[in-house]
């Protein structure tokens, strides 16, 4: 079974985010990057499917504006067999990114191309669907269970008030939800895996040029929270607090 997993490097969730001068990008200075958590789950799904089938390989595909391979090495350390690093694409929107990934994936043959359901930085939810469309492949999003059997993928997804089961023919594109196949995180890399990662093959390709169809106007940090207000002290403050909760905050 040949499986591809597309994963995005995003700022670590503990990173302190600053906007770069120009106001259109995050300042990468001092920011540690990690694999987007849903993509990390997709990696784990693919690794377990490969281990269960006992054959084939898992190939990681990731883009990085500077060609930095930290996320790729992490994927290789947890067991991905080889990787394609696409250098470039700093200013790409979802459509341009999907075009690049489709161009990279098209000449390679995979049974399933996995994604996390969304990247946790821009939350666009678009790339898996667009890649499937560009490659002319069937796709299913936000899966909570994935099984591969007899040339078909059997997936389940949560829908309003229930669950949906779908089947699709391979090759196909699948994006996964947290908890898929009981998986909430990727495994820890092993020390041996980390040491072996540097000798696994990584193919670096330059991102082909695609025109963005969206113009990013500006990025802004969320407004600072206004300071709290002290309405009084002790029991005497209760009537005023209740009035404010009722009339101003409208939570009572």
């Amino acid at each position, binding site marked *: 079974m040949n499986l591809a997993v597309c994963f995005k490097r995003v700022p670590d969730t503990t990173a302190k985010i600053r906007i770069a001068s120009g106001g259109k990008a995050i300042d990468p200075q001092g920011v540690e990057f990690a694999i987007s958590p849903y993509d990390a789950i997709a990696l784990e799904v693919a690794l377990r499917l490969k281990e269960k089938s006992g054959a084939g390989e898992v190939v990681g595909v990731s883009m990085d504006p500077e060609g930095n391979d930290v996320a790729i090495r992490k994927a290789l350390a947890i067991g991905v067999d080889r990787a394609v690093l696409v250098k470039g694409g700093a200013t790409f929107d979802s459509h341009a990114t999907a075009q690049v990934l489709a161009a990279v994936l098209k000449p390679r043959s995979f049974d399933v191309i996995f994604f996390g359901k969304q990247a946790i930085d821009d939350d666009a939810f678009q790339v898996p669907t667009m890649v499937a469309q560009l490659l002319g492949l069937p796709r299913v999003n936000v899966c909570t269970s994935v099984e591969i059997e007899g040339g078909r993928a059997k997936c389940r997804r949560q829908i309003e008030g229930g669950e949906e089961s779908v089947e699709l023919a391979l090759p196909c594109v699948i994006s996964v939800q947290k908890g898929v196949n009981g998986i909430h995180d990727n495994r820890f890399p092993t*020390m041996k895996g980390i040491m072996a990662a540097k000798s696994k093959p990584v193919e670096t390709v330059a991102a082909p040029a695609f025109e963005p169809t969206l113009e990013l106007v500006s990025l802004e940090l969320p407004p600072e929270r206004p300071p709290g207000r002290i309405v009084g002290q002790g029991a005497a403050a209760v009537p005023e607090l209740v009035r404010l909760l009722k009339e101003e905050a409208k939570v009572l």
Partner: protein
Amino acid sequence: MRKFKGVDFYDLDPLLSDEERMVRRTVRDFVDDRLLPVIREAWEKGEFPKSLIPQIAELGLFGATLQGYGCAGMNSVAYGLCMQELERGDSGIRSFASVQSGLVMYPIHAFGSDAQKDKYLPRLQSSKIIGCFGLTEPDFGSNPGGMKTRAERKGDGWVLNGTKMWITNADLADIAVVWARADDGIQGFIVERGMKGFETQEIRGKLSLRASDTGEILLRDCEVPEANRLPGTQGLKSALACLNQARYGIAWGAVGAAMGCYEEALEYSKQRIQFTKPIAGYQLVQRKLVEMVTEITKAQLLCLQLGRLKDQGKASFVQVSMAKRNNVFHALEIARMARDILGGNGIINEYSAMRHMCNLETVYTYEGTHDIHTLIIGEHITGIPAYF
């Protein structure tokens, strides 16, 4: 839970390779996700959290610097970073890993026969079996050369008699690397639990290293086959070579405990308001925090250079002594200062400073006491031994 971000005042991170940073990150995440959630209860109950053993084995930490037998073959700096991160969790857990790796797997790898390596190393690496190291005796701690434990030839094998004391993992262990005096000098043996005359007993009532198993090994006419004698040893020197491995890991580990205490005290002091402002805004508290971060930075530099020397085969045992002596001393001071900054909260186990402080009292004493390391370095620089 808040994730630990590390302390890097002197911008040392660029001196680490990508692999070294990934190793540190992995063990750091493991400590946040798996170790810290269970350590408080284990420490309070005085139990080693056994559920961590297979998980640490799965990460590949046991024997991680050794070549072959399923081991990762990583360098000394990466291994040191593992010890640092584990001890940021708890000194007892780092001790377990130090013993399994530096005091059990290392001597078998360095002094064992091929048959012994094939038999024991893969199972130690995967934690299917657990090891302990028997050198110290009730009457011989700083002076191991005076040991009373005897090994006498009997037919094709050996008979061991004696008592070993303060043995980490004694009660958990499936095998013990035991040192005993034979007619032709000190010899090392791999004694298996189940061999006639081998018994262990837990030492109770510890106020330190409570999440670690500490015990005694009793050898009463214990029969050990010749095949279990380590053939490559050269007397006490070989036992001390093992200690050198473990001391190296301790030097790094102490930095981890110190970083944990510093971070806890720093965060607390910025939030705890007394009189009109956070206590971090008072000069006396700032001075303590500055002492802490300065000593951590110096200890990090000692460790990093020691690790690089070790990987070049140039680290001397005296340099290891200096790093162990300095780093543990300051880690203990830092833990005490952190406890102090935390005020009354510092004595509660919701915070880790006092647990680290109690643990470090042991670390200060074991693997060569602070004073013995002073004398090792003193002899080296003056040429005059001052032990007795």
